[in-house]
């Protein structure tokens, strides 16, 4: 009896607290939605009443242009799909090469101390200045864009793999060694599990960078693909399809980032 009596107020208090927490979270979310909605309304009215129609389009026209100009046009659709293909291929290449090189460089102290500073030096170069060189070497087709996206994506993975391997607690390594583990055992059972968190940080950064590289190359080549259409719409002062095309690519970028983030959360959960 006494047990029940003490328990009831507790659950009530907990329920009240959880309700308060819920209402607080809901308040945050609804304020956020209201802000976005308000911004869209202001944009709509400002673009219709005060904005220059050659430069800015209201959100409703952009939504209409998305269906009438972007998604219904086979050439634009295939340009968008090609961009997606380029990002995915460049990213896959960056992950495979970055992981392999990172494991090789991080495996011994000598190779790390000698080669890692060179990698960091290369990472510090603003790679965008090499963009004309990439189109000179690979042409204006998908190869140049994949190569440029790869060159952006490979460094974050490489750097994070090497850094992750370095951050393994030396006590664990010494313990493994004293218990007679072979170097291959140590890499598989000690270094690798500890590198994973850092590796996934690298995976997330690499997706951001690969997107940057591919989009830069797409915009640079203005005779084909997405770059051609953005230039066409900008030069004919047709902002609605331009905003719609950019919005579509932005949603694609957000989707790819979210996928990588989900994978990261899934695989680094064990650490908490």
């Amino acid at each position, binding site marked *: 009896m006494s047990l029940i009596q003490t328990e009831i107020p507790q659950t009530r208090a907990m329920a009240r607290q959880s309700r308060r927490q819920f209402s607080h979270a809901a308040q945050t979310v609804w304020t956020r939605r209201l802000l976005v909605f308000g911004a869209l309304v202001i944009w709509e009215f400002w673009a219709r009443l005060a904005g220059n129609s050659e430069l800015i389009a209201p959100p409703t026209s952009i939504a209409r242009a998305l269906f009438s100009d972007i998604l219904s046009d086979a050439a634009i659709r295939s340009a968008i799909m090609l961009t997606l293909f380029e990002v995915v291929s460049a990213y896959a290449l960056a992950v495979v090469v970055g992981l392999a090189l990172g494991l090789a460089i991080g495996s011994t102290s000598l*190779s790390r101390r000698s080669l890692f500073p060179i990698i960091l030096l290369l990472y510090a170069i*603003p790679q*965008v200045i090499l963009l*004309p060189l990439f189109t*000179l070497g690979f042409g204006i087709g998908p190869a140049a864009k994949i190569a440029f996206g790869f060159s952006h994506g490979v460094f974050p993975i490489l750097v994070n793999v090497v850094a992750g391997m370095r951050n393994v607690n030396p006590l664990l390594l010494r313990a493994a060694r004293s218990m007679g583990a072979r170097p291959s055992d140590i890499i598989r059972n000690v270094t690798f599990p500890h590198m994973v968190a850092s590796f996934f940080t690298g995976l997330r950064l690499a997706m951001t960078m690969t997107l940057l590289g591919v*989009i830069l190359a797409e915009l640079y080549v203005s005779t084909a693909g997405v770059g051609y259409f953005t230039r066409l719409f900008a030069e004919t002062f047709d902002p609605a399809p331009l905003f719609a095309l950019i919005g579509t690519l932005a949603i694609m970028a*957000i989707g790819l980032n979210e996928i990588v983030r989900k994978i990261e959360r899934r695989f680094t959960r064990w650490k908490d």
Partner: protein
Amino acid sequence: MKETSQLPARAIQFAFLASLMGAWFVIGRTGAVSPLFVPPMEAVWRAFIGLVQTDQFWSAVATTLRTIGEAYGIAVAVGILTGYLVTRSRFLTQVLEPMVSGFFAIPITLFFPLFILLFGIGPASKVAYGAAYGLFPIALNTIAGLAGVNRHYLNAARSMGLSSFGTFRHVLFPAAFPVILMGLRIGFFICFASVLGGETISSVSGVGRNIALAAELMEPARMYAWIVVVIASALMLNTLVSGIENRMRGH
């Protein structure tokens, strides 16, 4: 861990760079790779000497430096102000911080055609683009820094009667400074790279435009000379900025 000599590592680094240079020299001599893609070293050196003697070189460098300066100035001012305003209340921070960081997840490069549309093809669009890219890390780090300041410091400052400006000047800013400084550094290099990128993609003047122009005119030696100039200045800036940062951190 036992102390290991730096000598073997340095020797490997030196050998790596030397073999890279050697490979470039041999390729230039034998023409194993098309000189359009990898021009001989002497040709690049000659192009570099010719380049620094032209007015075009110095005016391009001046344009780019001015663009970077203006873009970074705007990014710092708007970024820190945004960070300050967003952290005025805890509720505001909770609402806005995920919005700012969520928007930063979109590659801002996508919006580059809009900058061209709105600000024209001249330096103004590059200033706006560089500022827009650079202000995000600055704003996000300012938010993280200011929101992370221990509440007890603020309560103590208030109970001792410090004005709100005095609190910002003597408590909030110094406590958040290391995190803000990191944002300022990241923001600077993002600004630097995006101004050069904007100039390369679509522009009429500046260093990036000259690199793209040399490629379009099939003058690889000149293009390499420009690339060497940019890489050298990027590495110098990196050393300079980390030097400044270490000094400010030690302060």
